[in-house]
């Protein structure tokens, strides 16, 4: 079912070495290093404008880094288009939800498997056997995914009619539909109320337990990050200022001054 080779447990899913990104004169990210192991839950935090989303954009291939190298499962991603990077096993969600609002929920999930459809235009027109097999398989998988995310009853709805929390959930489901090795969540709790946040924590933990996927998340809700992540990286003005376990980060002096002023967390 999974198109990608299983990675050995000791090699990182995503490795970034000395990544720097300049926008004109501005250094959005500088000298960023990270190595994400399979089945790990990692956090990326920092004040607003610290360059967190830029790190995600670089990792997903949306930007090409000015310097440094990115490896997905040991393969360099330099010069690859985002869809190619995604097909190598990186999926992400967006800070502002970017679902395809006029397509049904089921189609949202199905289209995310576009990279390994294994059929082309002519098969789709002439409905060849490979087309029929793949479509059936994709639909089955998408329905399973909707089932486990408890979204099946919305399958024929369009996302724009769903409540905000459900849209967030759907976006995570859509990202998982690409069979990622690494799931990057860009502020999944943004705009959720406290009940929804609790559900989100449960959901992320559940995904972590049930899917063979490593999770990397940007989040401003400290309780979410502290609760879920085993490793946290803190950046400010594009520079990494601290990393470690939640407890280490919590008490790190640089984090306290840069991120939270002079108060404690």
């Amino acid at each position: 079912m999974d198109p990608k080779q299983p990675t050995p447990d000791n090699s990182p899913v995503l490795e970034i070495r000395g990544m720097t990104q300049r926008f004109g004169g501005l250094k959005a990210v500088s000298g960023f290093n990270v190595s994400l192991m399979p089945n790990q839950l990692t956090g990326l935090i920092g004040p607003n404008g610290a360059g967190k989303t830029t790190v995600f954009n670089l990792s997903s291939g949306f930007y090409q880094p000015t310097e440094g190298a990115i490896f997905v499962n040991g393969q360099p991603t330099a010069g690859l288009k985002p869809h190619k990077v995604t097909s190598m096993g990186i999926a992400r969600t967006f800070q502002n939800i970017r679902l395809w609002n006029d397509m049904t929920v089921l189609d949202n999930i199905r289209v995310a498997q576009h990279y390994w459809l294994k059929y082309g235009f002519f098969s789709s027109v002439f409905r060849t056997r490979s087309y029929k097999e793949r479509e059936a398989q994709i639909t089955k998988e998408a329905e399973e995914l909707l089932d486990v995310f408890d979204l099946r009853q919305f399958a024929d709805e369009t996302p724009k009619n769903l409540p905000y929390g459900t849209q967030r959930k759907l976006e995570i489901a859509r990202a998982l539909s690409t069979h990622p090795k690494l799931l990057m969540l860009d502020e999944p709790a943004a705009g959720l109320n406290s009940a929804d946040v609790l559900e989100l924590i449960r959901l992320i933990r559940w995904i972590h337990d049930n899917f063979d996927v490593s999770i990397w998340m940007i989040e401003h809700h400290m309780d979410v990050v502290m609760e879920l992540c085993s490793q946290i990286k803190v950046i400010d003005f594009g520079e990494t200022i601290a990393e470690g376990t939640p407890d280490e980060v919590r008490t790190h002096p640089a984090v306290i001054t840069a991120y939270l002023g002079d108060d404690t967390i």
Partner: protein
Amino acid sequence: MKQYSLNIGMVLSAILVLTAAHLGWIDNYIQIVLMAVGINIIMAASLNLINGNMGEFTCGHAGFMCVGAYVSSLISVYLFGSKFGDPQLPIGAVFIAFPIILLIGGAVAAVSSLLVSVPSFKTRDDYLAIISLAVNYMIISLLENMDTIITFIASKYAKLFNLPDPGNIEIIGGSRGFQGMKDTVWAMIDVFDGPWMLFWVILVAGFTVWIIRRFIGSTYGKGVNAICQDEVAAEIMSVNTNKVKIINFMVAAGLAGCAGGLYAHVYGYVNPQSFGILKSTEAMVMVYLGGMGSLSGAVISAILFTALLEILRSQAIIDFLLSPATFLFPDWEPSAGVVKWVVIPLMLVIVMQFRPEGIMGNRELSDVFPKLKKFYRFK
């Protein structure tokens, strides 16, 4: 069986129309109108693929039609006409050759769509609109000057190899137009006397709708919709946006090219100017009148629009519409061909005011009448 009834019904009605035309129950004029409807359906449905489903804004669709028309006309005249010497093929081969000629015209048009689809990687919206517009003008202008260019190259070539100067070469005919395609149609009629062009138009129009339905209905084709709704999300969610764009443009332009080939053979005469901005505008109007992204909307509006064009050609109707004005100004004698192009845009402007999303919005006929679903199978 019931689920196929719509398809069977369509085939039966097509056969009925063809039989009626063959037996002379419907006259030539009606046949020409029916063919115009078919060609417009192809144009509207194919442009809908770009402007509706993909959400781009191109306004040079007639340019692709022009390429298809000229390419297929040239091959057709070369093979079956007497303009470039004796016919190359026996007339019996026409039934195999004609669809191939149409397909070649479509294929060349599809390749020419790269002129628009490659820039669309980097840009969209109004900038792409201008690129498509410029391509439309460029194609027309190229065809108008083609003979001059060929003459120029031939004389340079002759000079280089000390051959006698070939003089003015006339192949395409420039702005005077190109004709001779009727020979191919006569070849068909010589074998069997029947309404052949009507048959081909109905066949290709049905084929167009069939292709587009299946393409858009597949997960592969839904990538096109994904690009329309959020291109960034599509790219990051593993849709190869550039490839999908190229394919989508090629399908649309290829179908428009086939429409051009049909147009050339129906009327037996093509002229670069007849594929100008007015033709592109007609296609755009049909798409937006039908509703962006709605295939059944495109078909319905193509039928309505062509019917409207034909109805308003009648001087009697125009005179009736303008009777109050001509009563006040008895000297004024407006011609229907001109007033038509005031009345139609005016009607469209008014329709837009009341229904700013087009006839169908982005829904299909089966969304409006869910019961229809029982009568055809689609998946």
